[in-house]
């Protein structure tokens, strides 16, 4: 297979995760940023970023090993 699907998926989540994390950090104390009391943009952005990094790492590893 020419394209490892984990690479675009990983990159997408890295970008969206980074975007949400930064946005969540910048707007942390703004009214309406945490309607439920949980800084969810910040928390979930970090989760997405971590998932994206794992996917990219797996894709790179598979490429290196020639799997």
């Amino acid at each position, binding site marked *: 297979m020419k*394209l490892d699907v984990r690479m675009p*998926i990983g990159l*997408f989540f890295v970008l*969206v995760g980074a*975007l949400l994390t930064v946005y969540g950090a910048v707007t942390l104390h703004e009214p309406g940023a945490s*309607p*439920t009391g949980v800084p*969810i943009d910040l928390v979930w952005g970090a989760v997405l970023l971590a998932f994206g990094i794992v996917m990219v790492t797996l894709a790179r590893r598979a490429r290196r090993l020639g799997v």
Partner: protein
Amino acid sequence: MTHVAGIDYAVMGLYSAFVLGIGVLLRRSVRTSEDFFLSGRAIPAWVTGLAFLSANLGAQEVIGMGASGAKYGIATSHFYWIGAIPAMVFIGLFMMPFYYGSRARSVPEYLKLRFDEKTRALNAVSFATMTVFSSGISLYAMGKLLHLLLGWSFDASILVAAGVVLAYIFLGGLTSAIYNEVLQFFLIVFGFAPLVFLGLRAVGGWPGLSARLATVAAANGYAPGAYTRSWAFMGHAAHNPVGVEWFGLVMGLGFVLSFGYWCTDFLVVQRAMAANSMTAARRTPLIAALPKMLFPFLVIFPGMIALVVTPPAASRAPSAQVAPAPGAAVTVTATATATAAAAAPAGVVPPKLDPRTGAPLRDARGRVVLDYDLATPMLLLNFFPAGLLGLGLTALLASFMSGMAGNVTAFNTVWTYDLYQSYVRPGAPDAHYLAMGRIATVAGIAISIAAAYVAASFNNIMDFLQLVFAFVNAPLFATFALGMFWKRATGHGAFAGLVAGTLAAAVHHGLSLPAGASVGVKGGYLGVLATFPSELAQTFWTAIVAWVTCFLVTILVSLATRPRPEAELGGLVYGLTEKPRDAVAHWYERPVALAAVVLGLTVLLNVVFF
């Protein structure tokens, strides 16, 4: 209307760029029609498995299951734990060896190899019609939703979404659809998981949700656990909100509809056919079953929560103004919504409005009718701040697109291989069929858009789709089961059985009516001989009648007609086909081991929520 911030648009824009990018990157790998329609049979099992699941994750899943969750409670999980998992295990273990092993390029083509040309033609035509119609319903639902919640133009929403799907399938064919389905799968999981987390937190976890739903159950005349226990009240149709008794549920949904869909529908089977080996093809539905069994928590829970949750004070929810549905003459103001909400406290689920007057609709007992299809989207708007809202909306868009792409890729394959190549222009060079596949993609999407404008008058998308599946798919499983496991079944038998089964479905539906419904699309158009407690009960029994009719007619006509010689049935029928050997490194990669895990976990879930 909710204000969508720049950050939300940025997430949606990124998503669009990535799905189109995947199509562009894969364009170079599409050289033959097999690359375009079957991904060159070169995709690993975990990818086809997630695509198998995602192709089914259309509007009816995310919006419809949330709607059913608000309407019926946890009993909606029967669509998964009874209505999907057993069938997914069955196709993986027993049917995939024939689909994949026969080298058929589509499900109708298997019917041609096993039976005859007319059985294939009947299946191909009905399937192709159904896929574009389903795709149209999906588009319609999306356009309506985006217009209602965000004030986006209905026409522009469906044209842009259809355009994106068209572009990535046109460029990369099935591989592009499958890759994007995997991205869409993760997006839907990550988009809805925080919704469930925040929603459950707001209602006090599962105990809090149960307590609140007990109040709703009491108000509707049910026992306290009617919305939070899946089996306990299935003894009698009047004791549960679904309005179905256990036999109709298990036979109608769990056996006929479920096996009819998961085991014969080319939309999902096509993903498994793209796998890179027989073992991978057999593991595809089993891998899909693992996340599938957990999906009730992701898509049903939001509906249940939306019914009883108190919206957070700081939410940016759309209570200011709700735009009218396309074509409606009125604008509904906050006052009407607030008055209706006061009359029927129902969490964040808004009332269904009369399109002419803008007033909330009421049922025969004077209770406000809720717009259940808005349960999940309203929860999203109430609980997600800017940023995460973009992710949630993108997940919604992804579900619409993956469902549509599933339909379109199945349509272009069946049209090109089973109709065009078979009846219009056989014997042309491969490049011609590849070009036809791309033309069929454009045509399929154009018809879907037209169907979107037609499919406008149904309350719950799920109920309607189940009805369509009942007519077309319910008899199908009888045909496949007999075809694969009874070598004596003949082409004449299969064809007569399918026609008789579909007719039986129409007659049964035409002679029955759900309680409180009026004669028309809901049934009774041939006279009302039977009344069912609910629309779903009628649908399930229609399916049972269709299946039994097809099963019996196929057997009778087969016995009266000449069977094909056994030598022609190798690879197509159980008993005349060599058992597949699993080429796996570890025992847990064997389809049988995976199936045992899947079934064990499903039983456990049924017990926990009994």
